[in-house]
């Protein structure tokens, strides 16, 4: 076993023992279930009404219109997942990323690890790959719940293309959550105090989720937590034209919601992405940048410090 594999396994085992992590993961799972239930409930209700209406139309010899559920993309019934992943999913990733390094520092074992025959790069690899697996577990959990919901609805029929888009959506969610987890690893590795280590990624997340969309497109915080209203076009004004052009390429949350809506089939017709940079490129650049930040944090980590007073 390589040192990074040992560190990865150890980090995942330590995560599994942490109550905070279990709580956050349970909360994420609960919200994913709620999201799926809302989609299932709404669709089932429409299906039931449609069935009753169909009987009435047939009894009166009138033509039966098509089921409205089958008009749009079947994946759109899971649209609330986009919001839950960008809120509780990203925050879960922050907590997991933060604990990756902080667990070792608080335990006071960094000097014992630093004096072992491994490179700092091994340490970084171990922690980042553990984060990738932990966040992958969250994304997979959401994926299983989403897929099960779609599978049990009688009026929803998914083709191979739909399943592929659903898989792409959860991969996108994984990438989005990873970005914040990586920022948390980098911040906790570089911060001089536990508080700052958690506060930095949290502030970045709050700014990207609520402040940036308000600046680029007048998407107020209440609108930002709704999958549909978060996709409104920017007001026609010079200020928003300018802010969308300048800040749009850095609006990670909007890029994610735009791509999510595109994949799930509920993107409003003709809505352009915010700024000139394609949303996927924005997400890739953020992921790469946060990866470098986490790597640099681990490579520069002060291995002499440890313990709660470090």
């Amino acid at each position, binding site marked *: 076993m390589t040192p990074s594999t*040992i560190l990865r396994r150890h980090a995942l085992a330590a995560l599994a023992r942490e109550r905070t992590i279990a709580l956050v993961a349970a909360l994420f799972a609960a919200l994913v279930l709620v999201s799926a239930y809302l989609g299932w409930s709404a669709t089932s209700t429409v299906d039931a009404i449609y069935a009753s209406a169909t009987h009435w139309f047939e009894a009166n010899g009138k033509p039966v219109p098509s089921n409205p559920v089958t008009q749009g993309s079947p994946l759109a019934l899971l649209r609330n997942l986009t919001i839950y992943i960008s809120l509780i999913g990203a925050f879960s990733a922050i907590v997991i990323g933060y604990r990756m390094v902080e667990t070792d520092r608080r335990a006071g074992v960094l*000097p014992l*690890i630093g*004096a*072992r*025959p491994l490179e700092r790069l091994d340490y970084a690899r171990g922690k980042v790959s553990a984060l990738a697996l932990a966040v992958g577990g969250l994304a997979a959990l959401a994926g299983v719940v989403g897929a099960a919901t779609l599978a049990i609805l009688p009026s929803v029929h998914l083709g191979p293309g739909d399943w592929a888009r659903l898989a792409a959506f959860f991969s996108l969610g994984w990438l989005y959550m990873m970005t914040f987890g990586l920022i948390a690893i980098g911040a906790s590795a570089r911060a001089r105090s536990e508080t700052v280590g958690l506060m930095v990624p949290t502030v970045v997340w709050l700014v990207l989720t609520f402040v940036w969309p308000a600046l680029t497109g007048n998407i107020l915080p209440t609108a930002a937590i709704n999958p549909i209203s978060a996709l409104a076009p920017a007001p026609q004004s010079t200020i928003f034209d300018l802010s969308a052009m300048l800040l749009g390429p850095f609006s990670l949350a909007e890029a994610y919601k735009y791509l999510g809506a595109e994949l799930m089939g509920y993107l409003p017709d003709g809505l352009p992405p915010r700024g000139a940079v394609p949303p996927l490129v924005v997400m890739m650049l953020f992921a790469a940048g946060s990866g470098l930040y986490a790597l640099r944090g681990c490579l520069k980590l002060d291995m*002499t410090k440890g313990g709660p007073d470090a």
Partner: protein
Amino acid sequence: MQTDTPAVSTRGLTLSYGDFTALQPLDLDIGRGEIFGFLGHNGAGKTTTIRLLTTLMEPSGGTASVAGCDLAHNRIALRRAIGYLPENVRLYDTLTTRENLRFFAALSRIEDARDRVEEVMEFLGITDLADRRIATFSKGMRQRVGLAQAIVHRPQVLFLDEPTSGLDPMGVRQLREVLERLNGQGMTIFMNTHLLSEVARSCSSIGVLSHGQLVFHDTIETVNARYGSEEALEELYLSVVPDREVAA
């Protein structure tokens, strides 16, 4: 790896932060199989020296080798050859003794990690603690588990930073016996300490550091022949170490 080279050798090893020099150019040779006692006041630079020699910190200048491995160019081999017990050692509180030791043994990349962990626990008399979580341990118990992680990979040179700090007299005695047994197996021991009595009883050579500068280095036989008693050793220490302390 050469066996005729000193266990620890430094030439002009130094560490500076801006205008402050934490460690003046240090020239030191410690032979293989020695127990070296490193004395000095608080903030003298003893811990800094150990951190440099265990690769936890980068020196500002000079060269050093441990167990024949160059500090600058052969860090992984050097780390494989050393064991390190920091002052106030801490371990994963939520893990048991056995889990902690297996983790550090695996990181040290030894092949017989599981067997070796059992062997070390037996050697240190902590087998009864194997399945208990570290969080419930006293200082002395933690110190023994800390020592176990430091020797689990059979290092050639063992660095101990104030190993007797916070231990009761029985704990100090047990530690001394363990160190003598390890030394009897050929392990070189580099020990930072405040306790002159421990140096007089256990060490084969001593060095005294004052304000980042090595002010005395000789074998314990020479010291004993010259000064004759523990009181005289204390006189020697006080004569080479100024009475003021510096910040750590």
